[in-house]
């Protein structure tokens, strides 16, 4: 057993995730020393809550990237799902199961539209999702007039607060909707990719679609599943975001798609397909979150935050590409 453990550790040590973990630990340690507020439970809960939206979308995108496709229409999908679910809840009344069913249903249906266009008309996924982003978003704003919804049902505005516990004198923590949804989505995506036959098929299809087709994989079905999964994640994320923002704003989500792409690719997923892990995505998301949070705690003006995020993305992708090249040349010259 220990040998197996050592072997798997040495494999992990060479992986992208390992270096990401080291960077994050160094960042955490130095931020913890520099700011007394950083390594607190309060800050951890705040971070998880505010990054749940990006995190859930990142999981959906991870699955699409592994399958060898790309989807950037998810912000529009989320806007539509959010608007319809909460407009229906306001007009006819609904409960938690109701709004989630509507949002997930709409997300899945719009994902299916993408899958059908990509597979049946043989249009590359990047073209389809650029087009459907504009179609979904344009139609949503056309029919709703871009009006915000400020009054949400009481039970939705209150949210949930589970496993409440006291911390210190007058602060209490609990698992809120954002953290619960984020945790469930991480667990389900991990199970899908690592513990199911379908997950292995998604990796195989992303690695080599022709080989997968010849092996008799049901390519259309797999793609349908992958893009619907992305849509479902967008539906869940949209409600998480609406609950946090306490309103439905149809125009604020579109334009954030590249933030999600950044988190996933920082986590090591390849745009060529077949590569990527849930752990890596979590670490990529954590790196972005900790960086932005740390800059604020250090008193750096929030105006400068995107600059440092850009710098980290550029350095990280350059270092990864450089180390891969070194490894290739070392292998070529024994």
């Amino acid at each position: 057993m220990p040998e197996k453990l050592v072997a798997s550790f040495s494999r992990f040590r060479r992986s992208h995730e390992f270096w990401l973990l080291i960077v994050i630990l160094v960042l955490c340690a130095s931020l913890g020393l520099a700011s007394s507020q950083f390594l607190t439970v309060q800050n951890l809960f705040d971070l998880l809550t505010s990054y749940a939206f990006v995190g859930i979308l990142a999981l959906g995108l991870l699955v699409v990237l592994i399958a060898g496709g790309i989807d950037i229409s998810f912000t529009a999908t989320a806007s539509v799902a959010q608007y319809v679910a909460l407009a229906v809840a306001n007009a006819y009344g609904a409960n938690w199961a109701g709004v989630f069913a509507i949002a997930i249903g709409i997300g899945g249906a719009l994902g299916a539209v993408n899958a059908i266009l990509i597979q049946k008309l043989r249009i590359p996924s990047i073209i389809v999702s650029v087009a459907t982003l504009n179609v979904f978003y344009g139609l949503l704003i056309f029919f709703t007039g871009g009006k915000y919804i400020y009054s949400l049902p009481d039970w939705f505005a209150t949210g949930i607060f589970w496993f409440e516990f006291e911390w210190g004198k007058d602060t209490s923590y609990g698992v809120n909707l954002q953290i619960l949804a984020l945790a469930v989505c991480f667990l389900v995506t991990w199970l899908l990719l690592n513990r199911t036959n379908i997950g292995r098929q998604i990796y195989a299809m992303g690695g080599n679609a022709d080989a997968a087709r010849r092996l008799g994989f049901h390519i259309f079905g797999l793609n349908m599943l992958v893009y619907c999964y992305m849509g479902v994640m967008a539906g869940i994320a949209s409600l998480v975001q609406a609950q946090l923002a306490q309103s439905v704003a149809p125009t604020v989500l579109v334009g954030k798609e590249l933030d999600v792409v950044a988190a996933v690719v920082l986590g090591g997923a390849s745009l060529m397909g077949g590569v990527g892990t849930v752990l890596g995505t979590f670490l990529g998301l954590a790196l972005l979150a900790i960086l932005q949070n740390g800059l604020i705690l250090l008193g750096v003006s929030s105006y400068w935050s995107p600059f440092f995020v850009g710098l980290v993305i550029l350095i990280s992708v350059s270092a990864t590409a450089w180390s891969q090249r070194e490894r290739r040349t070392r292998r070529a010259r024994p």
Partner: protein
Amino acid sequence: MSEAPVMTLRGRMARLAGSGTIATLALLLFALWAVFAIAIGDRFFSVNTLQSMAFQMPELGILSLAMMLALLSGGLNLSIIATANLAGLTIAFVLTRYIPGSEGITWVGVQVLAIAAGFAVAALVGLVNGFVIAYLGVSPILATLGTMTLCKGLAIGLTHGNVISGFPEPIVFIGNGTVFGVPFALIVLALCALPVAIMLNATPFGAKVYMIGSNEKATRYSGIDTRAILLKLYVLSSLLAGVAAVVMLARFNSANAAYGESYLLVTILAAVLGGVDPFGGFGKVGGLMLALIILQVISSAFNLLNLSQFLTLAIWGGILIAVAAVPHLRGRAER
């Protein structure tokens, strides 16, 4: 078993159908003209309408050219808008700082210097992009995502999101003036599109760009320094973003860190609609120009019909899917 070779053959035919795309687009344009002529009438062909169309097209057109160059090599340049805004702010900074109080030759000199400074910033971003993509081997989408965030961050950090405005007459003319009734900005677009078209179709450099887009490895093994070509290509793409910066700041008579952000995905939409293969190797400037005219005709007509600009977005997306599906549908009809 036999499906795979047929598939790749069909894929190759779809790629070769670049000229077919131009025919499709021309047909589409005539159809749209006919429909809108009936729906709107003479107003659609008035000088005012044509002129306003000609004023709106150049920004998106120049930015789409910048995107097209990267797409042709099999890459992508997500940093064009951020580069344009950073270059625009540089120009605006020099102008507002040194123009007041200057006259005569200094007055002219400052304006030339300002634009040169803007192009220098754009070229620098292009060098970073090109170096990271060509020499470090980072995938273009990631590298330019990084420089996009970096440039935007720099612009926001330096200006705190504020607008810089108030420029001298000649600068404003670039965006708002006309020469014999033709908007000067449209002439700028033509002055960008023509050299790019000539460079792509009639120079060794252009041929090498198409080759890299079709098969980068094969191009490298045939003795071409693909890295130098890619570096130059990303610098050119950035310089075009610099030209777009001048047109943009001239038209709005102001510069800001966040102007034109919604254009980013639209430039990809325009390029692909114009027959540029998103995986590289195929696409003509003529097709892109037709696509831009189509997008502009729809937008202007919807404006005249008092329809929402968001409906225009939706229709643009629908048309992209329809045009992208044509090669496959045609292939199926022929079999």
